[in-house]
């Protein structure tokens, strides 16, 4: 735990100094909303379409952020520094996933209201509680898979390409579940609660891949 907090605090401080990741994710999301507006030729969307646009945008923004997750570690010796310390190696996974989750949450604080203003037909306000439940579970999936894929990709030559091509299919079930769960929330005819079935699948996905990531992460660091 101590090591997890140390690495997480270091990562947040680094982000605060450089502003490399989070602003890029926010800008990327806003541009994507604009792109969807023109590509679909719609000024307001609702229901499944709205859920799809939001989840796809967040998915791509997450992959963008995940690509930066280990860059400082690789380029500035952070991996070696961490490996030299007598700490549990999975604390790096926990810290990075936590950082990723925080980045996503902060991104959504900006991107979701922007989505409400720019594209969403129905009013956002009453839909927030249901949406937060869906996004919290979706963020967990994005954070875990994003960290794992990023850790795999960081030591490859074509890492900018490897991480999305592995990450996208791997995240597809999470995308299906979160898009389906968010659809009734954005329904044009009054907001519905997210269906428990999809929240359950999302939660199951989170748990399974968190456990798998925990089991395999050591092997990505060992030399």
């Amino acid at each position: 735990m101590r090591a997890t907090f140390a690495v997480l605090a270091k990562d947040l401080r680094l982000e605060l100094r450089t502003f490399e990741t989070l602003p890029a994710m926010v800008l990327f999301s806003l541009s994507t909303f604009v792109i969807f507006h023109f590509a679909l030729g719609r000024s307001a969307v609702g229901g499944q379409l709205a859920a799809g646009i939001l989840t796809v945008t967040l998915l791509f923004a997450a992959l963008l952020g995940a690509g930066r997750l280990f860059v400082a570690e690789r380029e500035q010796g952070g991996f070696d520094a961490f490996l030299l310390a007598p700490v549990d190696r999975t604390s790096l996974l926990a810290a990075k996933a936590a950082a990723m989750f925080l980045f996503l949450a902060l991104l959504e604080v900006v991107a979701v209201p922007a989505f409400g203003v720019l594209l969403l037909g129905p009013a956002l306000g009453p839909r927030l509680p249901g949406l937060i439940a869906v996004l919290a579970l979706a963020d967990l999936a994005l954070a875990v898979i994003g960290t794992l894929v990023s850790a795999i990709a960081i030591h490859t030559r074509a890492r900018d390409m490897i991480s999305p091509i592995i990450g996208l299919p791997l995240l597809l079930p999470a995308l299906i579940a979160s898009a389906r769960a968010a659809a009734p929330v954005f329904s044009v005819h009054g907001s519905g609660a997210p269906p428990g079935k999809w929240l359950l699948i999302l939660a199951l996905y989170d748990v399974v891949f968190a456990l798998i990531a925990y089991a395999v992460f050591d092997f990505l660091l060992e030399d």
Partner: protein
Amino acid sequence: MTSYGRGLRGLSVATIATITVALALVFFYAPLDANQGFIQKIFYIHVPLAIVALCGFVVGGLLAIAHLRTGDRKWDLRSYVAIHMALIFGVGGLITGSIWAKASWGHWWVWSDPTLVSFLIVMLLFATYQPLRFSIEDPERQARYASVFAIVAGAFVPLNFIAVRMAQGVVHPRVLTLTGGRLPGSMGLTFAVSLLGIALLYATLWNYEIAAKRARMQLRRLRRAALGDDAAGALGRSAAPS
């Protein structure tokens, strides 16, 4: 003969015999399907290919666990070949499935069929296995990372099927249900023999590929031992274990 491909002959004979019997059963024994007619014969090649491919992916993940547990690179080779062969079988499954879809429903691709869609997703994921390997130069790191990928992706296979199946209505021709019963006995027998034939084919090709790879590795090692490091030549960038 060396030890390469031990038992390969027996396996090959069994495979050819089983596939021959399976083909005979498909075309001369199994009755015409009441609804689909002759087109249902694709079922006997398409479904076994897909099932064996999926099992191959999962087996690749299990072999990868053995690799990370023991640190012995022979498990990586086995895992690699399992996934490699499963990809080939999977391509066969996708193409035959697409042909069936065209004949039955008039479209080459049908999104409403969860089995087809989840199979495509699994194929998309495993198609990145080779690029990932290719992109890592150090052979040991390559083996380790490929194993991590194989484990994650292997676990992904069942989870993905659950998610996609729940997302869509059940449309796939459910000829073989878990409860059974719907498949007439003669069709069931034909399908079982076909599945066995394809599984044996997978096993044969897997063994064959392993034997060929081991022979090449042995050759390289001999070159090194006999002529020194330089004679072996630079190891080309490769997706295959070495």
